[in-house]
């Protein structure tokens, strides 16, 4: 949701800048994704959205479930979030943190949906071509979708390259109908 990501942005930015200064980006990334998955558990979610639970109680619950995995700084971060009653934003914060991390590492996650299995050589060629085009290190994630009929759809963030037969057929249908 647009509104949630707006609220999450300052927290994610603060956490990221702190992590960069502390040279522990990977550690923070792991901790935040752990905390995010904890916050997404139905029971925790219920507690976090309950108005009767105090801020301290909410923070304690999250910190306890995460256990010793969290560094002190990260524990503090969760306390601050709870003081402002923003613990529900943890998934968004983690997500934005990952984007910033990818930007820092000049890496980008690319989803490739293909109609048939791509062999290793094809994947290599694809990721090389994509890293040349996007000027980023590419983390390829390949999945299979037979309904594309042929070709592949490549998604890197907002950018979409549709080279599938299904996409071309849709375009043909549109042009014949217009």
């Amino acid at each position, binding site marked *: *949701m*647009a*509104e949630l*990501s*707006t609220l999450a*942005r300052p927290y994610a930015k603060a956490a990221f800048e702190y992590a960069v200064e502390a040279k522990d980006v990977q550690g923070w990334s792991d901790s935040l994704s752990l905390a995010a998955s904890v916050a997404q558990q139905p029971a925790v979610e219920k507690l976090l959205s309950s108005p009767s639970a105090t801020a301290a109680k909410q923070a304690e619950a999250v910190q306890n479930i995460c256990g010793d995995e969290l560094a002190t700084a990260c524990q503090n971060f969760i306390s601050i979030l709870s003081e402002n009653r923003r613990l529900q934003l943890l998934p968004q914060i983690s997500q934005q943190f990952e984007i910033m991390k990818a930007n820092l590492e000049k890496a980008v996650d690319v989803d490739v949906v293909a109609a048939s299995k791509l062999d290793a050589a094809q994947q290599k060629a694809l990721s090389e071509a994509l890293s040349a*085009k996007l000027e980023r290190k590419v983390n390829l994630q390949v999945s299979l979708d037979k309904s594309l009929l042929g*070709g592949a759809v490549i*998604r890197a*963030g*907002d*950018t*979409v*390259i*549709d*080279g599938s037969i299904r*996409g*071309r057929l849709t*375009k*043909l249908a*549109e*042009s*014949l*109908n*217009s």
Partner: protein
Amino acid sequence: MQQLNPSEISDIIKGRIDNLNVTSEAQNEGTIVSVSDGIIRIHGLADVMYGEMIEFDGGVYGMALNLERDSVGAVVLGDYQSLAEGQKARCTGRVLEVPVGPELEGRVVDALGNPIDGKGPINAAATDAIEKVAPGVIARKSVDQPVQIGLKAVDSMVPIGRGQRELIIGDRQIGKTAIAVDAIINQKGSGIKCIYVAVGQKASSVAAVVRKLEEHGAMEHTIVVAATASDPAAMQFLAPFAGCSMGEYYRDRGQDALIIYDDLTKQAWAYRQISLLLKRPPGREAYPGDVFYLHSRLLERAARVNAEYVEKFTEGKVKGQTGSLTALPVIETQAGDVSAFVPTNVISITDGQIFLEADMFNAGVRPAMNAGISVSRVGGAAQTKIIKKLSGGIRNALAQYRELAAFSQFASDLDDATKAQLDHGERVTELMKQKQYSPLSVAEMGVVIFAAEKGYLQDVEVSKIGDFEGALLSYMKAEHGDLIDQINESGDYNDDIAASFKAALDKFVATQTW
């Protein structure tokens, strides 16, 4: 059995399949977050431009109006029932364009230039962006050629020049559209192309206008852009800009065009609706802060451009021709209140206004133009010579008459000079009345005003002024057709013409009893 369309011939389909150029270009994609009252919020679309067309599933298009940090606000151009949260939205890389050119003449189109008159597709060769910057200072030329409206009251007292913006303002149902339609009808044969933009009107009213234009043979040189009351607010907001682009086509190619925005109040309402739904802060009367700019940027595009601009634009194909786009925006007031927000804005933007008054309309003065507060700030330079020479006394006569009429209500007996002025004013008021759809040519107007100025109306009963005028005009047409044609051609006025007028009128008065 179902009928086959001409476009369903196998070869044509084969050709279209063959010609379809699908390249897998990188596209920007986003996800619809919310759909509300024609406003779509989209997450993603990082590369979208302001005003860019956005493509939704099912061939529906929208226009990006709000670019925010995490989302894009867009209006849907068309039906938004099929859109749902979670669907994809794609950038097209194009700003909104409409077809322009002579192919549109005689047609009724919607705000996007699609035909809605059932006369088949419009194969316009050119398209143009609907939002453009008006010509700059260097490209302009002052207004010095007339646009004849064909109404005695307008052409004699508030003359309109090519490239001028003249506001038509007044309450509902007192003849604003009537003046506009008369203006279009009178452009028949003048070479001025007309664009009638109907915003937020009843579809029946638009149909009535189109029918009237067809009846009077004025549809051939006219484009009607209609965004009726049932069209989405986005269409009503865009229709004037679309019409303006169609008019600019002529302006930029050294021709003349006349555009009527009927009316801009409703466009402002539509824009207010869009702005409030986009959560832009409301200001006075709940209009957004840029409602002045909405109208000023639209009306600035109505201009007269000089020959160099035209030559440069057409790359030397048209030389030594100036182009113009004359705008007649219409504003509806509530109970004659011109101090409301939108009326004051548009009054200050335009080069004058034709102010219509309910009281005069009800008293039978039609067109119900109030001569005292109707002005044309630049049209005087463009007025035809003959009308300019003759009509000087008309405005004076009417102004003095109104003053005296109010004053003389309390006076029992008046001196002769006052009485004469009252008589003359009454007759001129009567003479300024004109039926709808019966525009007069320059020469006809000249004769009628000449008769008033030189006192030929003195002995005519007030109730018979209309008949006198009709008889005079048919007499002039029958007996002095050459003179009429000559004046219509040149628009000149000199002692010879005055003498011929005088001779003709003397003869007319002598042979008929009034």
